[in-house]
């Protein structure tokens, strides 16, 4: 049995997209990129059940990139694994309104596991239309974009709920 069974389709709650935008837009308002992780039980049909927002030490939200230190991934693992959740997608923002493309940094930092998703939300997270988001899938050593038809066939938007978890130190409001 492989630890990375192929994924044919993803079920993504609309709520997960909304939680994602809620999490990343504050950084966007300051002109910085941000991001979250989508977790769920990996299977032939994988459903996103949790949105994890990393913050605090080890997370860099800058105008040019969003970066998460390996120690933060370790903390996410510590939360996720007892719940049998795997990392399905890394979602991050670009400030531009242009059609998203994966930068060298995006490809470098992206998951290198079969059928991992890299999703880019343009306009610093303000873009509501997921059809304008960039959807990329990993396979054969690189990411490729999911075209509209393939995305429509493989990504099912659902009305189910999704959990939201913050990993890291939360700054108190002034």
């Amino acid at each position, binding site marked *: 049995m492989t*630890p990375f*069974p192929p994924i044919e389709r993803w079920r993504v709650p609309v709520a997960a997209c909304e939680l994602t935008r809620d999490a990343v837009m504050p950084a966007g308002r300051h002109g910085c990129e941000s991001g979250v992780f989508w977790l769920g*039980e990996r*299977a032939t049909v994988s459903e996103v059940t949790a949105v994890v927002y990393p913050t605090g030490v080890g997370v860099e939200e800058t105008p040019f990139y969003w970066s998460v230190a*390996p120690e933060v991934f*370790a903390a996410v*693992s510590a939360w996720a694994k007892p719940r049998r959740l795997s*990392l399905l997608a890394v979602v991050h923002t670009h400030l531009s309104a242009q059609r998203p493309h994966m930068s060298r940094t995006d490809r*470098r930092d992206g998951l290198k596991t079969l059928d991992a998703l890299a999703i880019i939300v343009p306009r610093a997270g303000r873009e509501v239309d997921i059809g304008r988001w960039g959807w990329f899938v990993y396979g054969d050593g690189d990411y490729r974009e999911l075209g509209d038809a393939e995305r429509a066939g493989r990504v099912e938007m659902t009305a189910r709920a999704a959990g939201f978890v913050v990993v890291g130190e939360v700054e108190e409001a002034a």
Partner: protein
Amino acid sequence: MAQVEAKKGQQVKVKVDYLPATEDFEQDYSTETIVETIRTDAKSFFGVQDRQERDTYFYYLALHGERVENTNVPLTDLVKKAKAAHFSLVEQITAGGF
């Protein structure tokens, strides 16, 4: 009295998880096993390897949320008397020069 602590040379049930994977790596190791062996076996199980392309990719073990800095030590140095150990495998990417 039941034996509850591992002694020198006894087996430790090792589990290694990796965030993107569905399945953990699980294997019994002698307490004298060098930890680097476990890191190597776990990388093999998850199909990843340390490598240098334009960037450097390195996979380290974390135990109780802390990075295991030195893997050239016997397992017993890390787990003391425990009979089981749960590690995480974590990818570290160091950007190369432009």
